[in-house]
């Protein structure tokens, strides 16, 4: 009974230890206190139930009851009896908390503050695990299974964190599990009374049993495999090693991933938000820039038959400083550095974050956000933008038309140009573009010709209630109807610029809106906007907003893309500091075309150079790995070879020659060789004999440590070397030499031991079957056995030492003191 109660306590403690990984989720430790209370209630209920020798189902009921009481006390609804007895109202409250927790899980990112719904779910979960663990351990006596619910707790932070969870909490949980297993095993043994060791030793004293040694060896092997095998599998190593490397995230933003940013249909979101009657604040941005260009969060640059699509972003962790954009010193380009803080409200929930183009560094972003330098988007795979607040530095570039005009056409074979000028074949649009750009020499002039086409003079108007979509047919419709909103304007301009052979894409973001206080802009869903970005050689992406500015509150224009409808339209929505002629900001990501050259052909311009450079490393690593493996496998054979070589060499002279002269030798007594020759002959004989024994082991001939050399040689001649008389003689010679070396005054000298050895070895090899020969050559059992023996000896010594230490420590064990007192 006492043991059972102990095991129940251990189960409860192990559950709490297993909950340690949750500390990565919560900001504070309130959950732990509450969990301790709940688990204690469960354990106490179980202990009480067991005290009454109730069946298992009653124990489960009791534990559930204890858990309910604890939850009632911890999360009161105010209707309880005596603060702990639940009423129907309490359960209603629990249901509310549960539903609230679903909401809370969505709304909070890690680390979460102490909110009741989340705490409730946590405590409920841990309490349920405690019940399960108790039932499995104490009730069913299957503590190994208890690892499953305990692992379930660990899976929570793993699921929440995109990057790895710190290992220490896991180690704590694992230690709890091991404790449980050990406690159960000890208990199991104690149920049969004292463990009998034969010489009066106690149960608790560790002993080096052969089974335990085998278990230790298995455990070590298992651990080594568990660590090494994942490293060796290439598919897993990308994740493991990749994060260890330069911080390049693994598998980011693949288009097929579940909640990846690539799947967001920005166009649909845009029209949906713009058409909403309710105005909600989405973003607050504070910047040091006087008149910033649009806040930007997304890009659609994948043009297919059904319109512009968003590609999956691909980038590196957006922590700290980003690589400094290449300095461009061209006349007409001005670069200024600014600082901004973005605060997203709870209403905006997407895997992208808005910021100003050309960021230099981010701060307060956390680990789950990544920056794609090509698309210039900030994205997360598992986090979202809700309630996110962060600040960043950015560089604002402004261009003069002259500077843009100086840009040369991009080479036709540049990957960037090939990808970003792809358009579905719509002959009408192509014809229109050809007509518009006829006679224009520079890239900029061509873009301007198309841009200028979308003027009110040509009948273009702003209208929100148009057909959505950016497919070829829809673009054609728009060009015919000449009525649309930013989506159509941006897509049509990008499409036509692409048709003119210039890379273009659609950018998404916020206009500056019309609510400004000081340096802070408050942006709503009505300020969502889309515009076009055009790529110029040596300059980068330059924004053009073709949407009529009267339809867009907070619209800004720039020197290179002025408001074509200016005379007809004033911009009352823009902020008072609007200075049209002043250096108007624009976003211009920069990447020299040469940098794109390295990009792969598969279509992902943003593929990044890091993976491209890493790829050729794999074959090398594989080769090195295979070589290391081969070397490891060849170790026994090499060791065997080295041993044979060493034994084949004559032993070095150890002492100076000290041969007694003939006169001093007693007559009648055989002359005894003393000195170097004797030592050498002795060493040679020993070496030859050791080599013979190893050879016997290698060829699977029985070796008996109780046999004398003479007996061994005789047995060899009698049983093994029956067919080969010469080898038999050689074996006898070796045996004689060894026995003389071991037991006689003077060793045998002048005998051809190496030749004899060779002869015996040849005879043995001739008799062995192919498999034995192969094993003897590749994995000589003699070496393996020696290593194994060394290992076993070491482990035995260690365990014996630990046991002795433990035994000494027992002197101070309080248990022992108590036991003695009781027995007296």
């Amino acid at each position, binding site marked *: 009974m006492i043991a059972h109660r102990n095991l129940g306590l251990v189960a409860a403690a192990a559950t709490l230890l297993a909950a340690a990984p949750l500390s990565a989720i919560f900001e504070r430790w309130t959950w732990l206190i509450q969990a301790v209370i709940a688990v204690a209630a469960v354990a106490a209920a179980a202990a009480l139930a067991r005290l009454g020798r109730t069946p298992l189902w009653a124990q489960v009921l009791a534990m559930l009851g204890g858990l309910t009481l604890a939850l009632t006390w911890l999360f009161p609804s105010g209707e309880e009896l005596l603060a702990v007895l639940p009423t129907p109202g309490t359960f209603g409250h629990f249901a509310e908390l549960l539903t609230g927790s679903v909401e809370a899980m969505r709304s909070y990112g890690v680390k979460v503050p102490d909110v009741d719904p989340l705490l409730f779910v946590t405590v409920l979960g841990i309490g349920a695990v405690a019940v399960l663990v108790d039932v499995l351990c104490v009730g069913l006596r299957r503590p190994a299974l208890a690892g499953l619910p305990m692992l379930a707790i660990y899976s929570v932070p793993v699921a929440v964190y995109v990057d790895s969870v710190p290992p220490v909490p896991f180690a704590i949980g694992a230690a709890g599990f091991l404790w449980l297993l050990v406690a159960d095993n000890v208990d199991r043994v104690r149920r049969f009374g004292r463990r009998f060791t034969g*010489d*009066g*030793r*106690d149960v608790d*004293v560790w*002993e*080096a049993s*052969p089974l335990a040694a085998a278990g230790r060896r298995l455990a070590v092997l298992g651990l080594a495999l568990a660590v090494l095998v994942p490293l060796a599998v290439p598919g897993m190593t990308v994740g493991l090693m990749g994060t260890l490397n330069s911080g390049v995230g693994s598998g980011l933003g693949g288009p097929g991933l579940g909640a990846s940013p690539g799947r967001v249909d920005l166009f649909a979101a845009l029209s949906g938000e713009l058409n909403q009657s309710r105005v909600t604040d989405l973003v607050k941005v504070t910047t040091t820039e006087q008149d910033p260009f649009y806040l930007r969060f997304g890009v659609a640059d994948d043009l297919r038959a059904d319109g512009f699509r968003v590609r999956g972003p691909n980038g590196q962790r957006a922590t700290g400083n980003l690589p400094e954009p290449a300095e461009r010193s061209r006349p007409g380009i001005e670069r200024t550095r600014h600082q901004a803080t973005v605060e997203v409200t709870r209403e905006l929930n997407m895997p992208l974050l808005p910021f100003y183009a050309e960021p230099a560094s981010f701060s307060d972003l956390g680990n789950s956000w990544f920056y794609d330098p090509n698309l210039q988007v900030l994205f997360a795979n598992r986090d979202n933008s809700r309630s996110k607040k962060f600040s960043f530095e950015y560089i604002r570039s402004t261009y003069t038309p002259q500077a843009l005009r100086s840009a040369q056409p991009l080479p036709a074979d540049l990957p960037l140009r090939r990808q970003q000028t792809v358009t579905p074949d719509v002959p009408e649009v192509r014809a229109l573009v050809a007509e518009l750009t006829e006679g224009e020499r520079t890239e900029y002039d061509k873009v301007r010709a198309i841009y200028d086409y979308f003027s009110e003079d040509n009948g273009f108007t702003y209208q929100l209630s148009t057909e959505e979509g950016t497919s070829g047919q829809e673009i054609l419709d728009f060009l015919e109807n000449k009525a649309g909103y930013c989506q159509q304007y941006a897509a049509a301009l990008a499409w036509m610029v692409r048709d003119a052979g210039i890379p273009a894409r659609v950018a998404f973001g916020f206009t500056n809106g019309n609510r400004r206080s000081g340096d802070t802009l408050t942006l709503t869903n009505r300020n969502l906007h889309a515009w076009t970005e055009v790529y110029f050689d040596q300059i980068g992406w330059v924004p053009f907003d073709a949407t009529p500015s009267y339809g867009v509150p907070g619209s800004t224009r720039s020197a290179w893309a002025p408001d074509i409808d200016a005379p007809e339209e004033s911009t009352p929505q823009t902020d008072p500091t609007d200075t049209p002629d002043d250096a108007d900001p624009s976003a211009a990501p920069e990447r020299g075309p040469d940098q794109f050259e390295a990009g792969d052909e598969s279509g992902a311009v943003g593929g990044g150079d890091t993976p491209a450079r890493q790829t050729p490393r794999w074959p090398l690593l594989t080769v090195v790995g295979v070589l290391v493996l081969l070397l490891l496998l060849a170790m026994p054979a090499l060791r065997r070879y080295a041993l044979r070589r060493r034994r084949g060499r004559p032993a070095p002279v150890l002492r100076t020659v000290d041969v007694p002269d003939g006169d001093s030798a*007693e*007559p*009648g*007594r*055989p002359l005894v060789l003393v000195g170097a020759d004797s030592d050498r002959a002795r060493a040679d004989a020993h070496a030859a004999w050791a080599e013979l*024994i190893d050879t016997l*082991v290698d060829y699977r001939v029985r*070796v008996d*440590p*109780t*046999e*004398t050399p*003479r*007996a061994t040689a005789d047995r060899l001649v009698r049983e093994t070397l029956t067919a080969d008389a010469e080898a038999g003689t050689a074996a006898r010679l070796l045996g004689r030499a060894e*026995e*003389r070396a*071991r*037991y*006689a*005054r003077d060793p045998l000298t002048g005998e051809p031991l190496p030749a004899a050895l060779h002869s015996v070895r040849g005879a043995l090899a001739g008799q062995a079957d192919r498999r034995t020969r192969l094993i003897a050559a590749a994995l000589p059992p*003699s070496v393996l*056995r*020696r290593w*194994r*023996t*060394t290992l076993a*000896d070491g482990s035995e010594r260690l365990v*014996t030492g630990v*046991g*002795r230490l433990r*035994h000494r420590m*027992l002197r101070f064990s309080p248990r022992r003191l108590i036991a003695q007192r009781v027995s007296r």
Partner: protein
Amino acid sequence: MTQQTWDEVGGLLPYDEFRAASDAIVANIEQVIQGKTATVRLALAVLLAEGHLLIEDVPGVGKTKLAKALARSIDCSVRRIQFTPDLLPSDVTGVSVYNQETHDFEFRPGAVFANLVVGDEINRASPKTQSALLECMEERQVTVDGVTYQLQTPFMVIATQNPIEMEGTYPLPEAQRDRFTARIAMGYPDPTAELAMLDGHGAVDPLPALRPVSDADTVRRLIGHVRQVHVADAVKQYAVDLVTATRESPDLRLGASPRCTLQLLRTARAVAALDGRDYVLPDDLQVLAVPVLAHRLIPTADAQLARRTTDAIIADLVHRLPLPHDRKRSPYENRPPAGNGRAPFEPRRP
């Protein structure tokens, strides 16, 4: 009778002389005992090891003949005692009688005052008489009426006994058995040897015709030679291991004594010398283990119930005991048997 001290024996016997002398003795005995070379050599080895021999076997296999042949081959004093139930200790050791001429007690030496003493059917005498041999066998002296008389060298007791016929016998006490260096069994001769025996012994007993081929002095020199045989440390260690194993064996109630260790090594020296070596091999110890050890040991009741003879137990021990030739443990060595392992550390409570 005066006798030489060891210093007077003279220098080392050259190897070929030793060989010739020992071979001559063996060949001489083999004229009588055919096809038993190993047994004969063992008997000679015991003589050269200054030990005593117990020949134990069923009647009629030549126990007494071997003893007498050995005695006759050496030109030295030989006495024979037929142990009978009414034999008295004084018959063995000697007695003081009153000499009326000198008016004094005069010591009449008993049967043990000889170089070779053949004790036939030793277990037929009462323990009282058997005990008379205790002192002389071990200490080579006889004390009668407070006077100690030294025995001659070589001195050897060759006793025979019959293990089967137990009626009217008194088994030898442990102390007595321990004094015998070796116990050998004759065993039946193989058919060829038996056939040859019929030819040779059919008409006339060859024993009386046996001529001595050696004398006491030569035997002393032979013994001196045997004493010089080299024993390596590893061999000594092996002997100790072997004896220790008998003391720790769970099958044995009584293990071998330190005297046994000494005698084992001494006999091994003699065997090695007879084999033409000047060094002892573990093989010698292995060969001698059963003859030298087995008769001194007492098996446990369990072993007796299981009909395990001490011979079988010793053979098993020899088979399991690894050779100590190296300080380092050989990787091919088996784990020490579980039974004799001491606890790795002391028990918690006494």
